[in-house]
């Protein structure tokens, strides 16, 4: 739902009234060294990746220590085992594997004497029809653009989507997760509203569309809600609910993917 616009309007108005921001120093706790697992299996034949790292203190630079020496594998519902090997450090991959829609995949990671497992089912593929751009709602004087994705949602089944937007090869720092609770079976036009990167005519925009299963949707949607400009208007943040047991940071997602590139008009 586009309640997101409501919040955006609210913040715009707040901004008009009088708001100001400044960067501040905060004393934050440091709970670092926790295992982070990010595992993805897609339908596109080729290498599939599972990355293991550790979180760091807020004040550190954005470099995350790799977790090496783990035993990583994925099994499918038919009992096939796909072993992943490490290269470079912390990145575990299999050179050629293609996930199948409808199959359930189980990831197993053994590290530090613990075994972590997660299940994810690859949903049916939904075709990304087209990407368009139009004038942004806000900052109209700057002649900015926003990107809209268009696709036909399949009727009668719940679908969940995640979009990743790149502008001139730089990823936009926003989470875009949607489901079809309100749009089942409709031709969908979704604006990827963001305020991270200014998009101008002539820029190259790249959109990856993922069809994700429900737990993974909840994972991304929770992250999206915590964005102060997101649909929750900034709910109390927490670690998003992972599908990995025992609980650790990250997720394992079997999803379909399709990427389209276009020049913003």
């Amino acid at each position, binding site marked *: 739902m586009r309640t997101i616009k*409501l919040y955006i309007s609210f913040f715009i108005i707040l901004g*008009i009234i009088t708001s100001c921001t*400044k960067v501040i120093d905060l004393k934050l*706790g440091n709970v670092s060294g*926790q295992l982070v697992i990010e595992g993805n299996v897609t339908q596109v034949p080729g290498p599939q990746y599972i990355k293991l790292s550790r979180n*760091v203190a807020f004040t550190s630079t954005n470099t995350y220590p790799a977790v090496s020496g783990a035993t990583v594998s994925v099994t499918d519902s038919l009992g096939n085992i796909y072993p992943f090997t490490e290269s470079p450090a912390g990145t575990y991959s299999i050179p050629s594997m293609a996930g199948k829609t409808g199959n359930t995949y189980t990831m197993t990671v053994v590290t530090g004497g613990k075994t972590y497992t997660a299940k994810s089912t690859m949903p049916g593929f939904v075709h990304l029809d087209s990407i368009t751009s139009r004038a942004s709602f806000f900052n109209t004087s700057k002649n900015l653009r926003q990107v809209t994705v268009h696709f036909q949602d399949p009727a009668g089944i719940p679908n969940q989507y995640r979009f990743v937007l790149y502008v001139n090869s730089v990823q936009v720092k926003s989470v875009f997760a949607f489901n079809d609770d309100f749009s089942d079976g409709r031709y969908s036009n979704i604006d990827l509203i963001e305020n991270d990167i200014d998009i101008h005519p002539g820029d190259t925009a790249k959109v990856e569309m993922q069809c994700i299963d429900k737990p993974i949707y909840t994972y991304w949607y929770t992250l999206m809600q915590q964005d*102060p400009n997101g649909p929750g208007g900034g*709910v109390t943040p927490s670690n998003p609910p992972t599908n990995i047991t025992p609980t650790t940071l990250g997720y394992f997602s079997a999803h379909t993917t399709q990427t389209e590139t276009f020049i913003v008009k």
Partner: protein
Amino acid sequence: MNKILLPILILLSTFQAFAQKNFTISGTIKDNATGEQLIGASVRIKELPQIGTATNSYGFYSLTAPKGDYTLQISYIGYQTIEKSISLTKNLDINVAISSKSELQEVVISGNKPNNDNVAAPQMGVEKLNMSQINNVPVLLGEKDILKTISLLPGVKSAGEGNTGFYVRGGGSDQNLILLDEATVYNASHLFGFFSTFNSDAIKDVSLYKGGMPAEYGGRLSSVLDVKMNDGNNKDYTVQGGLGLISSRIKVEGPIVEDKGSFMISARRTYIDLFLKASSDSTVKGSSLYFYDLNAKANYHFDDKNAVYLSGYFGKDVLGLKNTFGTNWGNSTGTLRFNHIFNNRLFSNTSIVYSNYNYAIQDFESDDNFKATSQITDVNFKEDLQYSISNNHTLKFGLNVLHHTIAPGNITTSSTSSFNDKSIEERYGYENAAYLSDDWRVTSKLTFLYGVRLSGMFLLGPGTFSTYDEAGNTITSKTYTSGQLVKDYFNLEPRFSGSYLLNEESSIKASYNRNTQNIHLLSNSTSATPTDLYVMSSNNIKPEIADQVSTGYFRNFSDNIFEFSAEIYYKWLQNQIDYKDGAQLIANQDVESQLTYGSGRAYGLELFLKKKYGRFNGWIGYTLSRTELKFADINNGNYYPARQDRTHDLSVVGIYQLTKRWNLSATYIYGTGNAVTYPTGKYEIGGLTTFSYSERNGYRLPPTQRMDIGATLEGKQHKKYHSSWTFGIYNVFAYRNPYIITFRDSKTVPNTTEAVETSIFATRIPSVTWNFKF
């Protein structure tokens, strides 16, 4: 019905037997100039200091004393005290009109000794606000506001800057029962909480109960804010109003039939969107943002014994983004009341009350054209009786039948829209209650106010009702026919407060009360939004329960000119509601599957020093408190501070009559920052820097403080009209109070993260309003 009434009648007749040697004086106390009935005016017998009472919501009083010659003394703050010699040899009807001291005379300290009601009355945890004080307290942009003024009282915390939401003794903002002429106001805020729905021009009386709730109120856990509208001048026609920076208002009142009936209409409209026109952004420029509201009331007194009142409120907020998006929301209420005085001891009021809150969100763009609406409608029948049995017992009892209709969500779309039509089943239910309470003057020093309220919640069909397991999966699902009982809950709510007078100037008081709540607000946003969604107690949601004990020491100084109180409280909360991660609350048939339940506790100390009289008056309030919640799946099942937990909270209000024409005022607030959750680490996921958290609400926003000043200049006296100017400066010292702190990748130092503090109203905001009356 008979089962309830019969024991009451038996009880009444026993008390009757005690009271036979005495006679009763009863009547109504009114304002001499306008005919407005005065609420809470003190009526006492000078020769018998232990005999006294206060007028009820309709200005009615009744007191009983042995045969004799007495002086009847009637006093009310801001009014001349009147003494009347009476010869009590039979029951007497005495209606008295008293005169307001004109604002000019108010400078002089009253020659009459102020009374010690605050010390002597058994009720504790109550704050009564005088409209003239509210009118003098400086506020943002000059909009006088009762909700912002009550947040300056101890035990009451503002939900934040630019927000009229308030928390009472740690309770959530949906745990306040907000009544306007007995009608529930579901959303008491305009413009996302910057202004309240109460237009102070139309308001006569405001009482806030923080603890020891009288048995006639029920249905919410934390507090009762009882707001009563003006009846209207029944002597003369008057017009008054004001022109302000962001809003204007006008009030017209006058007699329908002189001395018998009157009307009052008050309206207000903001034009905050004029500021938007100044924007260079064409979308913002073409947007609309305003609210308006209307209060109206009429009454007619058939004779001394019978009166009818009709009052209503209608308000709407409109926000529109140029040709793309619009939303509007508003409350409407209506109250029809009939007062009947059976005899000089038995007063009755019958009310039929209507209340509605609705919102609509509309997207006009062709590719996702939709309109979503949601509303809650209440129809309430109330019968309240007050029976003064003798000079030491006053009974209150009554019945309440409240019907809710909740339409959680209805979405309509066009054929070109990305969205489908969707309609969530409406929900119906009754919240019924019966209560009985007694104000018992045990001795001249010891008084009890005790009673009991029986509440019953009945959730009714038609519809499909499901139960869910902890993970939110449906366990059972059953379809019910229209009117079929789905679930009922009964709760017995004892209410007790008592006071013991140590001497004429000091007392100790104690109270215990249980409150239950069967209607729950679902909103997982931290800002006040119009998309409020209400649900009733059901198979999954149990009634919220609060048990509160409190005790306090009350002391007056200098002939009751200074009032001091110290109260401590402890509250246990059961069946509190929170939301699961990623909860989808809007237009969700299975919204109850998104909820999780827990408990809480709140305790604190409130200190209050108030000077009610004199050229200089005002108060200092300080609260030391803690509010903690416990949910199995949050914070590893450990207690964590609620967002509204605020360790220290200080407010100072000063009003000074400088000269006959100049009145100055200032407020200062200081409070511990809200409990917030900050990251304790970071990692990368999906190419994005993501923060990790270890503790819920384990950090604090920096403390907030602010000082506001105001001044009123009364115009020169004219025979025909009166005018005044109100000036104000909000945030005189331009403190940067943090509104929110966010975390992001640094824009300046690559590969690092930074914390960003956003403040609103971080500058001085001046205001000016011109007020007139003729």
